[in-house]
């Protein structure tokens, strides 16, 4: 059986530049509005004023997310057409010949992985650069990251090496879809659901 694949993301290295996101768009020729890999900035904290001086208690970090090729993919569960399906390597893909473009998966996925392409009328999404992998190359986003914050591979290996954390704000409770995602947390990473900060760049997601 093929090993099930996932991403590792080292949050301590990400500066939010989005080279991953645009390299993905370039590789797959995605138009504005269709973004398979997105980067959220999660920020929070408070300021204390004392006369003319100020003291910050501030945190901020980035999370780069494409499809996590979940163990229990909610997109596959809710898809009425079976267009959304999961291969033996765990990679979730959408069959363009079947998808009806109802966008139910878009409502359901807490990672915004399925992205609607208005031109085609179908959902589109990350396939972990299947063509590159077949040539033995890294997915575009992984090869692009200037900080080397992204890697991919058999998720069991990733977990053995980096732990099994996937529940960091603004990501949802991993119990919902069981993402094949391993995060090395930023020093200020907040646990999922803690609500201590907010997504600073919602318009970019």
């Amino acid at each position: 059986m093929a090993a099930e694949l996932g991403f590792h993301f080292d949050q301590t290295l990400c500066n939010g530049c989005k080279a991953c996101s645009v390299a993905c768009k370039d590789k797959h020729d995605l138009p504005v509005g269709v973004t398979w890999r997105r980067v959220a900035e999660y920020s929070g904290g408070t300021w204390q004023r004392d006369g003319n001086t100020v003291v910050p208690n501030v945190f901020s970090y980035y999370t780069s997310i494409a499809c996590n090729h979940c163990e229990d993919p909610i997109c596959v569960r809710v898809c009425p057409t079976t267009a959304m399906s999961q291969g033996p390597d765990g990679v979730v893909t959408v069959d363009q010949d079947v998808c009806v473009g109802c966008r139910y998966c878009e409502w359901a996925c807490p990672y915004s992985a399925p992205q609607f392409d208005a031109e085609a009328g179908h959902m589109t999404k990350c396939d972990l650069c299947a063509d590159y992998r077949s040539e033995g190359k890294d997915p575009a986003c992984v090869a692009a990251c200037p900080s080397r914050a992204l890697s991919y591979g058999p998720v069991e290996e990733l977990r053995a090496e980096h732990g099994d954390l996937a529940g960091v704000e603004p990501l949802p409770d991993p119990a919902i879809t069981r993402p094949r995602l391993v995060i090395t947390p930023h020093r200020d990473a907040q646990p999922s659901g803690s609500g201590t900060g907010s997504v600073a760049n919602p318009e970019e997601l």
Partner: protein
Amino acid sequence: MTTVGTQEKPQAAGLPRRSFLKWSGAAGGGAVLVGAGASFGLLPGVGAANAARMSPADSGDKAVWNACLVNCGSRCALRLHVKDGTLVKVGTDDTGSDGLDGPQLRACVRGRSFRHRVYNPDRLKTPMRRKPGTKRGAGEWEEISWDEALDTIASEHARVVKEHGQEAVYLQYASGTAGGNITSGCWSRLLSLAGGYLGYYGSYSTSQITYAMPFTYGARIESNSIGDTVHSNLVIYWGDNPVETRMSGGGNMYNAQVAKKDFKTRTIVIDPRYSETALDLADQWIPIRPGTDAALVAACAHVLITEDLVDQEFLDTYCVGYDEEHMPEGIPAGSSYKSYILGTGPDGTVKTPEWASEITGIPVDVIIQLAREIGTAKPCAIMQGWGLQRQANGENNCRAVMMLPILTGNVGIHGGGNGSREGTIKFPLARMGLANPIKTKISCFMWTDAIERGAEMTEIADGVQGKPQLDGPIKMIINVAGNAMINQHSDTTRTAKLLEDDSLCELIVVVENHMTSSARYADILLPATTNAEEDDFIASEYSGDTAYAMIVDKAIEPLYDTKSHFDMCVDLSRKMGLEEEFTEGRTLQEWRTELIARTKKDVPSLYSEQEFRDKGVFRLSNPDGTFVASKAFREDPVANPLTTPSGKIEIFSERLWERSKVWTFDGGKKGDKLTALPEHVPTWEGAEEALTNEKYPLQCIGHHYKGRTHSSYGSVDWLIEAHPQVVWMNTLDARDRGIDNDDVVRVFNDRGVIQLPARVTPRIMPGVLSVPQGAWYSPDKDGVDTGGCINTLTDWHPSPLSKGNPQHTNLVQVEKA
């Protein structure tokens, strides 16, 4: 799977995720900005209608080595994948390592968007002339032939030189192809051959530090490399933000990340913003009011001196002016640095942490702790960024920061540094340019003054170099691959007005790829190829302890009716009777071969042209391991003196002391003052004034943005989507004004108004706004700049010593639009 979309297709779905179920108006701000780049779509030579079509993404038939040439200070490889003569994909370096030695030159987000920069609806397609009878900047054009365009330039050049002299011609400061060699060297070469032109000194990046640092160290010397911080016990990024301003995966961002990750050295970031460097690397963030760095330094010095943490032996041996015992001859008592700090100098103010706290906004205990850490953590690396010198008296700010490594004896040792910006080793590249035979220079920032009142400009009032007074005003400007004609210069509204009057500057030639804000003010507009359509031979810039060279190989034929800089200069040189001298009988390709051959003389192991094609990047590692600034001076100051008059570090600069008595500031502003010591000088629209200015109580600075290099890449749709223009403001300031995140706001002062969405964030200190610099100036009919260009808010008034751009010194107000 079927492919999805090309650039010309309508915007899919359009609305971002979280808002796709909100009111359609709520996303309006973003949508407006996404459209901004294509706002000149009706021009004859511009627009999506006749844009070249892109092919869908594909691996292509071949991949050629090319590079991103913009002025970020990094230099990344791009591998352009081509199919049927079209770019189909942009890759990056796939050679090199994942360590500090020879890292892979992974391009940042901008390089990755290169395809949309080349095939951009804003591309200039054919030479154009401002329609006769219309105002400059009105945006009305006529297509003309290359022949006519170059004839006009040749004859106008001859006329201007004849009527106004050689120095009435100005080759504008520009950095859009800063990384190019042949690309950026052609025009200066041709104009130099044609008798030369009024020169400039300084740059919009570093005018103040480039000018001021030599008074302390004899030259502008970069500090130790970031890689050298592996020897440090404390690292301080003082207004320095390599993780954001130098985002290359083979440059200083990567070096800083690797050093921190592997060595976990305690790191402090001092910055009004919680920058990406703070976010990634800082153990402590100290927010500081913009422009008050010299006050913080003085207070730290006070702690160091009173707690006996200074390196007295270093100061006695290597420096002039620290204490009264080490002053130059003939200087009045009480003029030493120590006297200034302890309040026994002319101003009588003791520079206590309490004093600095009120100015900088930093609590007293934080200042004391910072000073003690610097004093005890030897070696300590202090690297200063360039933002703190782009201030109304930025010269003193940057010289002040250099005081801390001097006081603690950290100069010239591993793990320390000289307090300038992080250093790098340079590649000895043979260049194509030619020295300007004219030696008269103005500050790069004073060209608008030189148009308006050139004949009045003098050495002692305006910093004219090469002669005491200019002969006359600028009458002809050639602006090649630059946006300082308006966008990157201060006070866009005032600049626009100046340029509209074509009786002042009589001819403006702009050579560009895209219809930038500056291109709009051209009389003759020449469409240039991008580097995807050109050959070149280039080298690394600020890359730390690895230097490298690359070839830029033409990937596609010139689009539309564009020409390379080389080809248009050859044609123009022919019309000027200079073809022989210009080409020296070589084609562009032969020039490249020649430059590679010349470089090989200095670097015998350099790749051949074919090896460059096969192997990509040629790297040189620092033979000394990591770069240490002024190491020889530290080891033997007598044998290896600095280039200051005393040969030592001049804490007190006698040259500045003399100059302060001669230079004039008639009609100047508060803070127009030269000081021999790096003192804190309160300035116009500075932090102190902000506390009492009720009309404009907020300081406004401009950070470098990830979606642009200055203004380069400013019209690329993918980047506008990824990094939309927003103004950063603190949660508390926003709450006081009823502003929520992503609300559209107006930021304004007496100079202008910009309109853009707000990023309400705790990541910037209260009382400070930051507008990412470089967004394209787009005034609406009421003059409101909806592009959100910070220079609609900035002032022409130069800094006192270097006459540089004080573009982070601004007071403004903000309100919901």
